[in-house]
């Protein structure tokens, strides 16, 4: 459980990284452009190389929070007259400000420690004549006064074992090491572009036959959406549940 402090490119955690992005871009912390910041945040994660799984997972939790907020903000707002809808970012802003507050306090403490570090104390110098009177702590008396019995000690030990068992989070412990996806979005986008090059159009189904697996399906789908957005392709579907055709817009 004792792992060294890890930092990702100098960031102590997801909040630290977010604060950095906000400050770098001079965003208003109370009105964070969530789309931009999510993109930048994910951009940082992309460049993380060998990071401990536990630490990375903290960053991933934040990534999913950001995406969730982004989604909520993109959804059409329900028409509610009586009350203004809560800003989906409110919780995040609160965390950011609280974190910032302690980060600031830590800086103050650092200065204080520097000043206080110039003060020295002295060890006990009890004169011999006085020390002779010194009595050792009598463990028996200590135990009697603290009202401890073997039975109590026994119960305590049992409680501790139970707590230890509780603490090993049964949900998380079932996850293995988090590994990088084998199929990367960029790679898949490049592959699709290569496949479609020189052709007028291609069936979506054809793209999937080359590679199998649920992950492939998802990444391929995302890749197509991304290529559409960047204007490399367009897609059409003649009828419901019909074949999805991918048309090349290049050349």
């Amino acid at each position, binding site marked *: 459980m004792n792992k060294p402090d890890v930092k990702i490119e100098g960031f102590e*955690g997801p909040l630290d990284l977010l604060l950095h992005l906000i*400050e770098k871009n001079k965003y208003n912390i109370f009105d964070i452009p969530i789309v931009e910041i999510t993109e930048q945040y994910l951009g940082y994660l992309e460049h993380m190389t060998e990071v401990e799984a536990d*630490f990375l997972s*903290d960053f991933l939790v934040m990534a999913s929070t950001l995406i969730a907020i982004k989604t909520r903000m993109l959804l059409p707002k329900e028409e509610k007259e009586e009350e203004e809808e809560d800003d989906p970012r409110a919780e995040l802003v609160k965390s950011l400000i609280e974190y910032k507050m302690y980060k*600031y*306090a830590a800086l*103050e403490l*650092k200065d204080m420690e520097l000043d206080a570090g110039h003060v020295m104390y002295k060890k006990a110098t009890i004169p011999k004549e006085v020390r002779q009177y010194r009595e050792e702590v009598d463990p028996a008396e200590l135990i009697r006064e603290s009202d401890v019995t073997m039975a109590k000690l026994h119960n305590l030990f049992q409680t501790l074992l139970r707590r230890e068992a509780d603490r090993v989070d049964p949900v998380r412990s079932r996850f293995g090491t988090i590994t990088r996806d084998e199929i990367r979005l960029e790679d898949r986008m490049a592959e699709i572009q290569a496949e479609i090059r020189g052709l007028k159009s291609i069936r979506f189904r054809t793209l999937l036959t080359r590679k199998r697996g649920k992950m492939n399906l998802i990444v391929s789908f995302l890749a197509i959406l991304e290529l559409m957005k960047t204007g490399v392709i367009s897609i059409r579907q003649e009828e419901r549940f019909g074949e999805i055709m991918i048309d090349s817009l290049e050349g």
Partner: protein
Amino acid sequence: MEQEESRMNLMAALEAMIFSVGDAVEEDELIRALDPERAEDKEYQKEVREAVNALIASYEDENRGIRLIRLDSRLQLCTKNEYYDPLIRLVNMPKKHSLTDVVLETLSIIAYKQPVTRAEIEKIRGVSSDHAVNKLLEYNLIREVGRLDAPGHPILFGTTDEFLRSFGISSMDELPDISPDQLADFQKQAEEEAGIEVPV
């Protein structure tokens, strides 16, 4: 006159005790050691407390190289920091642990929010903080102060006397203010530095 004399004697006895013990010592213990029979006497307690204050004041004289400080209800002698230079030439300073930013951040959360569980610290920092907590325990800057009466009975942490000493404060009240107002100021400063205006 007699009273004056007795205060002087008290001051001398207090000085002798605080000096010998070296470590921080409880004011109440000093009272009991001075005169066990009168330890419960309010009048006597007041007399001793006045002598303690007089002793503290006498050390503040600029010609003194040491001072008497309070750490909560405890008293301890220490050197004045302006004499640090000749001191380090003479004494091998015990190696000061240098606190990393991560550790300091964790410590500031514990200092301001104590008693606090590890889960609360992690929630604020957004990352697991086991290593930092253990380092702080090792440096004796924090300690376990009990367990929270909640599922799992998590350990509660708080700061120690060593924390007060290391940061040169005599009680938690002396910690710099970090209220939201303070943060607003802080924000303003940052904005000015950045040269932009942010509507709040």
